């Protein structure tokens, strides 16, 4: 059941990334919705699920992009694994730790992704800091909103039920 939910979340993130992102942020898509889903899954389900979710999501994203298949998969599986391990070892239920994790996950993803491409001599990324920073902020903002919405949803439903009963 959890695997199906993760698959649906990844598919939804990919569909949103490809259809809505270009309208949202001036076509430059300063967010990676798939990475946000991977971090969320890793924090809520642990390193193994996070790693497999990251691997699958990254591979599909690679296949849909014009890059080498596996680079994004590796970057996202590393992020999923490390984020999941941190989520298991530390308490990351408060807003600030989550914000820091989203920022760090984006930076780590960019480091692995760009590092591999540079290492293989396939792409160059002259001065990518501004792009990474804007993507980290975008991912963190969307991740925080997603956490808040998903966690507040059961409470809202319960309160509505209570009001109806009264």
């Amino acid at each position: 059941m959890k695997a199906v939910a993760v698959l649906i979340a990844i598919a939804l993130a990919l569909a949103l990334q490809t259809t809505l992102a270009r309208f949202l942020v001036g076509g430059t898509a300063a967010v990676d919705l798939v990475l946000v889903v991977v971090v969320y899954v890793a924090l809520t389900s642990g390193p193994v699920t996070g790693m497999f979710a990251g691997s699958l999501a990254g591979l599909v994203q690679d296949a849909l992009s014009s890059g080498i298949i596996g680079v994004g998969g590796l970057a996202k599986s590393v992020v999923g694994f490390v984020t999941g391990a941190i989520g298991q070892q530390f308490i990351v239920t408060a807003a600030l730790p989550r914000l820091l994790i989203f920022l760090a996950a984006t930076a780590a993803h960019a480091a692995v992704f760009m590092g591999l491409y540079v290492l293989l001599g396939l792409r160059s990324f002259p001065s990518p800091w501004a792009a990474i920073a804007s993507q980290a902020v975008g991912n963190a903002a969307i991740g925080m909103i997603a956490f808040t919405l998903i966690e507040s949803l059961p409470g809202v439903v319960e309160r509505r039920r209570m009001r109806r009963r009264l």
Partner: protein
Amino acid sequence: MALLDIRQRTGYLFVGLTVGHIVLISAQVNTARGVPVLEAVTFGVFAEVQRAASTAIGSLRSSWTDYVALQEVRRENERLRTEVAQLQVRLQQERALAERARTLESLLDLRSEAELPTVAATVIAGGASPDFRTMTVDKGTADGVRADMAVIAPAGVVGRVITPTPRAAKVQLLIDRNAAAGALVERSRAQGVAVGTGGELRLDYVSGTADVEVGDTVVTSGIDGIYPKGFVIGQIESVERGQGAFSAIVVRPAVDFSSLEAVLIVVAPPAASAKDAAQGPRE
């Protein structure tokens, strides 16, 4: 029980998965020629999902504009937009014609390059990853689209087709880090190569002594065999003449990639067009 045991060995799983990815990457880097099969199949399948998502969003948008906004105003706006787009394309062709007249090209070449056979396509999706500047259009091999065909918009050059499937095609935008096009400065005819940087363009290999100024228009030179000659790439935003042999030139793209909805795919490469023209005028 066995599965549970494996799940507890997360470290081994992580190493195994990492090695798997590295093997996958290595296989492609060493042997890939053309489009990998996995990429083509995944793209072909997902293009249908993108088409459905785009149709759903398009329907929502159109129902909103049809029933909430003023219908007549919208129709008139659409008509005027189409007219403006057609006029802009015409302007591009006229610009290409005038430029070729200045450089005294042959009449046959002129005719072949001005009458570009194109297919209109609608953008159905953007890139799947923010690190690659690509988009998906709703025309594919069934409509005559092939890899390496140029994609243009009324404002200028958009990019080239990289992965065509029967009903859709992936287009690499000119601003992608892996994209490049032969270019020249329209005013001074200084030649260079327009290279994508992810958001803007860089004009490489322009001599430090070449006559280049901020605001100059950069057009395609046609030497790459993909983009037709004389189409606008963008305008020069900054020029830095360093101590090296070449100037550092930044070009602002003419096309607003965030608002692209419809494009034209040039279905005959420039070389083929020239060959057609050499055989005689078309009726």
